[in-house]
């Protein structure tokens, strides 16, 4: 019992900043900054949401929807591209043995280690030549690269669980590798594909520094916009904006929470 109380205290402590953010979005400006803090008893005031959703006196009127749409396009685009590339390479790493496979996997892990700053500075110059600065394509490609190590190794771990016997039998029946992937591997690893897609989407949604550097005037993802709002005294606005943008992610992650640890550890620890 004592243990349970301690555990709940820990839960409350970790939940507190989220609670603080969400409640700030429907407090009025005086209550947000009241000290001692008004944690439970405050006037509920949804007026800021009207501003966020419809128009605002601070920003141009399509401000809210355009930021969310930017993030959605980049997130869905890069998660889809990541998934497509990862299916074939994950299958290959799981099924086809080749020399230097170990080194190849170390190479993938090394790509995961790269400080994003070491990627973005050169990529900025490369993109400047290719006219990819401030384009969706540009950010989608970088995010795809960032998510690929996780996606490939995670899918490989899911593919490893499908008995090899199944594809060997299909092989004998004359199925091509492409057919095996499409007819056997993909349907039997549906969970793995869903988890990979959702995690890639989330890590693209939360990525900050590349999106900041490559998106300039026209494209700003949610975290980039949030970091800009800090220079304006508009905490209520920022709270409402970020609350709306993180709730969908919360729902998505709770759908796949049983595979979350496996995703975080790039497929090496199973639950």
């Amino acid at each position, binding site marked *: 019992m004592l243990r349970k109380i301690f555990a709940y205290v820990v839960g409350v402590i970790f939940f507190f900043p989220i609670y603080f953010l969400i409640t700030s979005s429907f407090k009025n400006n005086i209550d947000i900054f009241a000290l001692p803090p008004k944690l439970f008893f405050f006037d509920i005031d949804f007026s800021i949401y009207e501003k966020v959703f419809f128009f605002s006196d601070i920003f141009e009127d399509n401000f809210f929807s355009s930021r969310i749409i930017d993030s959605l396009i980049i997130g869905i685009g890069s998660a889809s591209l990541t998934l497509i590339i990862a299916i074939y390479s994950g299958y290959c790493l799981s099924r*086809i043995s*080749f020399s230097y496979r170990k080194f190849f996997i170390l190479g993938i892990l090394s790509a995961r280690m790269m400080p994003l700053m070491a990627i973005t500075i050169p990529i900025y110059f490369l993109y400047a030549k290719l006219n990819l600065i401030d384009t969706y394509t540009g950010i989608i490609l*970088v995010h795809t690269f960032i998510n690929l190590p996780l996606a490939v190794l995670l899918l490989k771990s899911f593919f490893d669980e499908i008995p090899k016997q199944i594809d060997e039998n299909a092989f004998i029946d004359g199925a091509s590798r492409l057919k095996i992937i499409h007819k056997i591997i993909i349907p039997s690893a549906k969970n793995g594909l869903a988890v990979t897609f959702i995690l890639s989407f989330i890590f693209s949604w939360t990525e900050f520094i590349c999106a900041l550097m490559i998106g300039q005037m026209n494209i700003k993802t949610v975290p980039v916009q949030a970091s800009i709002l800090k220079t304006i005294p508009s905490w209520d606005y920022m709270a409402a904006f970020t609350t709306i943008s993180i709730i969908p992610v919360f729902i998505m992650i709770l759908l796949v929470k049983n595979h979350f640890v496996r995703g975080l550890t790039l497929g090496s620890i199973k639950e």
Partner: protein
Amino acid sequence: MDSKKSYSLPGGFINSDSSLPWLLPLITMLVVFAIIPFFYNIYLSFHEFVPAKRALLFVGWDNWIRLFTDEVFWGSLKVSLYYTFMCLAIQLVLGMGIALLIDSDDPGFGIIRSILTLTLVIPPAIAGMIFLIMEDANYGLITWGLKSMGLIGQEDTILADPTLALWGVMLVDIWQWTPFMVLILVAGLRSLPSEPFESAMIDGARPFQVFRRLTLPMLHKVIAVAVLIRGIDLWRMVDYVFVLTSGGPGTSTYTLSLYAWQRFTFVQWGYGATISLFSLIVILIVGNAFIHFAKVKW
């Protein structure tokens, strides 16, 4: 596997047993976004943008000499190291404690695990914003709390104080990423076999002994993976300092990545690339050595 060659299949490239066609898209991405940037960073580290001539000019070893004589660089290296190791240690110990606390079949603990999952998917820049408000000098909840408990003086601030600012940043990291350790360690604890623990109980071992002699050694793989991934992300962290302090006050919270970014925005492209190349080489060597010596396998 060895009988593969005997399958006679039509269609060469796409059916091939060769790995190359399947890996080609991945290899292309790795070449474009990892290998080309790596060499381009090396190229940049020997060049510098000269505003008077509006061009990148070859400067030899100047950037590297500047790097090793630059006090701000040494300062930011120290901050990066301190940040990485302190956060790693705190998150590991705290995470282990919480993991042992909530490692239970009781469904009541499931909701705590769900809550801990939520902190991990908040964009770090937004987590930084939440703490920026909570650590605000005048209206911040945490500042107010520390003042009322007498831990800091009435006039003190967190983020504007050279000694406290880094801890203000680390607090966000610890809040957001301790759950990462917890979830991984709980998964590890849940997968341990129960027999050794039962026999240790019968032999009358004390809980601490059981933890040291049984739990820790059996968890070593899980801990190694968690430390590796967390260590990588701590080393390259830039979002929190960017949002919370932008490196200040002075240069007291510059990490390597932030310093590189700052040089880049000051159009010292060559020097910025040199700093980020340095941090890249360090993490590649340390990371791969860790994988090798800790015997982490994928």
